């Protein structure tokens, strides 16, 4: 037998167990669910960004053959349903007053506040009939002035989205020591100021959102299958806040989920509406968004404008940083929406660089646009862009070498552990070493030749870097439960959620490796409120950190219980028993039994000590994270720009990440690469655009530019594994979001480097050919 230890399978690129079903078309996604008697719902969405609903006439729609029911906000209100609350962790203004939370009904009651807001629901025998019936509903609107842009919404005299939020301000926020920051600024030799736009984007999981709801009148229980990443928390909100039922009355499940990236984390109106519909017609109801609706109604991300100021001495030493941000919330608070531009964007201000003081201040602003909520990174990409972009800008305008500035200011290893000026607990790592390893990967020696080749073809080549610091987040608790089954398999259920990350493999790998079982014998369950008592879902790169730790903790509890059983059978005490190579044994004796024997014994009352029940190895434990982890790393990019057309091509990409322990390098690579591609998409291609009346101009995949294979360069990914964190059981730091934290500044820095010769100082994302072309012309004019 090959040597296996507790570390076995940790660090191995185990191929994915879920892949067979995905590769053969046997995945089961939300739209693949078919239930007997299932009806189909379609949503009528507002064409206006801001309008009073004066009347809705649904009589013609109701009479269409095959239509089962139609309902509007009036019926919703009469039925007494509750609103969808925000769970933002920041809830107070700087002056201590409460955040302004407008009522978020699942359906508009008498006023719409963004294009795409639901005003009526049709349920019919087929999806086609339901959609057709939408056209027969007559809605009378009295349009109101709308506001979509951040600066316009924050300006004096702007149209007001909510009466309860004067000036459209939902929340203001400050973090850091403003006095110390001002002092640092006063003492510094230079202060550099840069205005930055973090463009509004959207996650675009390739599977659109959807759900199926069922209702059992006898038990008054709902079952909701939902293409969601956060089954437990959303069960509580949907049941208790919106449907006003006990949460035990709602069984919430997610089937295979086709990508999420944050956009499937929150509570959305449609699943709530179809629960109502299922109860109303006494049949299961399915709703699937089409792509056009997804652009209108999925939560969007980023959308911040910031003024960033960096104070530094004449030798290049950083002294202080100040960032003032406006963050767009859309028309409602979102599930955690107000947190992103405030707390979420504040914590990693300053990145891995050393500062005397940092002050961050932000306002979260309502507009007549779709609600914003976390998109992969949620605040950390913004912070990383701010610091790493202003470093290159400062180097350019003050005549420093950007590489030298970074090396000079990275927090040295000797300073760790430390608390950053933003209060982050950085326990371990080696930022200069990680930066050095990244640079060593980048083939700097060959750069001059590549640049000359580009020049010979009339192209401009540039190189850009970002050293990022990020932090995990999301629910702090996770539950993992094992169940040793009669058929020899072991069930493993975890409340954390994969939407493509491969938990079925990575968690099984941990359990099987620890218990010396065959990974193929692990039967994995996620996304089911009946399978685990609690679950933190997805988000904040928490899967391995919190979920993986729960699996390991449960595995250890199984071994501890196994020792008790073995000790009983060996007539000794469990402290004498060891577990190794898949066997429980008492050193110095010939007493030994395999884990399989112990599993069998655990179900046999004759073999168990007094007071221990059969099935005693079926254990669930909850792991709770104390302090969030600090992934960090460095990205480097090379780009080529065609100055005649403004077209940017990313040609090379390198990353070294410190994610602590790497459980499955192949899956970690996948996370990094996918995140980098999303970051490159944000930097070069993607933008959600509303016109000033609130119409969405980028409402399809023809208008919203998604990165395709030839937009993305090959990527080289390495890991620094010398600093596992002690904050969780595995020493992991979280891998899910880092890619899109580091990529935008690396890419924009590379493009600005390429265009230095023209005098271009900065271009706002996305760096489309038109913007690049114009920037070159403007700089030369």
């Amino acid at each position, binding site marked *: 037998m090959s040597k296996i230890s507790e570390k076995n399978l940790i660090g191995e690129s185990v*191929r*994915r167990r*879920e*892949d*067979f*079903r*995905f*590769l*053969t*078309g*046997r*995945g*089961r*996604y939300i*739209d*693949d669910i*078919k239930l007997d008697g299932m009806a189909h719902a379609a949503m009528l969405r507002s064409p206006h960004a801001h309008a009073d609903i004066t009347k809705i006439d649904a009589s013609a729609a109701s009479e269409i053959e095959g239509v089962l029911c139609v309902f509007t906000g009036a019926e919703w209100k009469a039925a007494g349903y509750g609103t969808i609350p925000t769970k933002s962790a920041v809830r107070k203004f700087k002056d201590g007053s409460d955040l302004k939370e407008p009522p978020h009904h699942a359906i508009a009651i008498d006023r719409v506040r963004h294009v795409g807001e639901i005003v009526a629901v049709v349920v019919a025998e087929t999806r*086609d009939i339901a959609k057709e019936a939408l056209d027969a509903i007559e809605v009378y609107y009295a349009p109101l002035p709308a506001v979509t842009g951040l600066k316009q919404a924050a300006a004096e005299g702007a149209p007001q989205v909510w009466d309860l939020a004067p000036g459209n301000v939902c929340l203001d926020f400050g973090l850091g020591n403003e006095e110390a920051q001002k002092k640092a600024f006063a003492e510094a030799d230079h202060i550099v100021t840069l205005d930055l736009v973090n463009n509004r984007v959207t*996650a*675009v*999981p*390739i*599977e*659109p959102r959807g759900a199926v709801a069922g209702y059992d009148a006898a038990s008054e229980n709902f079952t909701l299958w939902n293409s969601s990443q956060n089954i437990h928390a959303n069960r509580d909100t949907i049941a208790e806040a919106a449907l006003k039922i006990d949460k035990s009355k709602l069984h919430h499940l997610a089937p*295979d*989920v*086709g*990508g999420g*990236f944050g956009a499937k984390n929150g509570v959305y109106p449609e699943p709530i509406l179809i629960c109502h519909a299922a109860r109303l017609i006494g049949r299961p109801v399915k709703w699937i968004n*089409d*792509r*056009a609706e997804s652009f209108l109604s999925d939560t969007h991300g980023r959308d911040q404008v910031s003024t960033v100021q960096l104070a530094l001495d004449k030798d290049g030493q950083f002294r202080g940083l100040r960032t003032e941000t406006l963050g767009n919330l859309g028309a409602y608070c979102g599930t955690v929406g107000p947190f992103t531009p405030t707390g979420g964007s504040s914590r990693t201000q300053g990145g891995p660089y050393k500062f005397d003081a940092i002050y961050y201040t932000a306002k979260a602003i309502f507009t007549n646009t779709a609600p914003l909520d976390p998109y992969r990174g949620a605040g950390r990409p913004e912070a990383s862009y701010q610091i790493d972009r202003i470093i290159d800008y400062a180097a350019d305008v003050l005549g420093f070498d950007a590489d030298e500035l970074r090396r000079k200011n990275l927090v040295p290893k000797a300073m760790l552990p430390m608390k950053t000026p933003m209060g982050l607990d950085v326990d371990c790592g080696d930022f200069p070493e990680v930066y050095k390893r990244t640079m060593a990967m980048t083939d700097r020696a060959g750069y001059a030749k590549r640049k000359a080749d580009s020049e010979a073809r009339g192209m401009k080549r540039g190189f850009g870097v970002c050293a990022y610091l990020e932090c995990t987040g999301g629910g702090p608790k996770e539950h993992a439960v094992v169940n040793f089954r009669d058929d020899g398999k072991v069930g493993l259920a975890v409340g954390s959620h994969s*939407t*493509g*990350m*491969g938990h079925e493999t990575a968690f099984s790998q941990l359990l099987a490796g620890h218990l010396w079982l065959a990974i193929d014998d692990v039967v994995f369950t996620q996304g089911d409120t009946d399978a685990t008592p609690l679950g933190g879902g997805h988000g904040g790169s928490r899967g391995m950190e919190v979920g993986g730790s729960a699996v390991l903790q449960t595995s250890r509890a199984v071994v501890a219980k196994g020792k008790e059983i073995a000790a009983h059978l060996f007539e000794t005490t469990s402290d004498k028993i060891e577990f190794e190579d898949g066997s429980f044994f008492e050193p110095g004796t010939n007493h030994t039994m395999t884990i399989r024997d112990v599993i069998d014994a655990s179900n046999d009352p004759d073999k168990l000590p007094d007071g221990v029940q059969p099935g005693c190895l079926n254990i669930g434990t909850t792991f709770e994270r104390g302090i969030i982890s600090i992934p960090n790393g460095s990205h480097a990019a090379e780009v080529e720009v065609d100055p005649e057309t403004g077209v940017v091509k990313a040609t090379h990409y390198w990353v070294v990440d410190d994610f602590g322990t790497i459980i499955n390098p*192949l*899956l970690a*690579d*996948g996370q990094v*690469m*996918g*995140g*980098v*591609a*999303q970051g490159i998409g944000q930097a070069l291609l993607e933008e959600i655009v509303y016109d000033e009346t609130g119409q969405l101009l980028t409402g*399809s*995949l*023809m208008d919203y530019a*998604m990165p*395709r*294979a*030839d937009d*993305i360069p*090959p*990527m080289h990914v390495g890991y620094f594994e010398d600093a596992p964190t002690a904050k969780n059981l595995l020493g992991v730091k979280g891998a899910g979001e880092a*890619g899109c934290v580091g990529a935008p500044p690396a890419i924009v820095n590379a493009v600005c480097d390429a265009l230095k010769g023209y005098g271009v100082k900065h271009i706002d994302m996305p760096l489309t050919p038109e913007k690049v072309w114009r920037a070159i012309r403007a700089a030369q004019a």
Partner: protein
Amino acid sequence: MPAIKLRVNGREAAAEVDERTLLSTFLREQLDLTGTHVGCDTSQCGACTVDIDGITAKSCAMFAWQADGAAITTIEGLADGDKLHPMQAAFREHHGLQCGFCTPGMVMTAVDFAKRNPDPSDDEIRHALEGNICRCTGYHFIVDAIRTGAKAMRG
């Protein structure tokens, strides 16, 4: 309602379809072949790609009745029982998929491409994927998978 007859994954299928039923809808709803995915409404994402008489096509971009008489292969028709097609195996080996939603279309496109170009360069692979969007992988491992899959297909 037009009556159509076609072969799907080697099996005869006959059905009555509404004029406006898309081929993707027909495959998913009437034949229960839910491996063909629908990710958009503008023929952009490629998740619905199938093989029709030896040519890959986006099944969301044609009506079911237009496939009358055709022989169609969907993702369900690629593996030989439990034995993955070499391109499927290469996607698994190289981690060319995460959520799996774009995957059926990616694999169908890749198989067709590798038949026409058995020894492709990475650039050619990337261009061949212009009609298929993946949001999860960043494409790098898909390119690796297609290079390996093409090699395995040429034997």
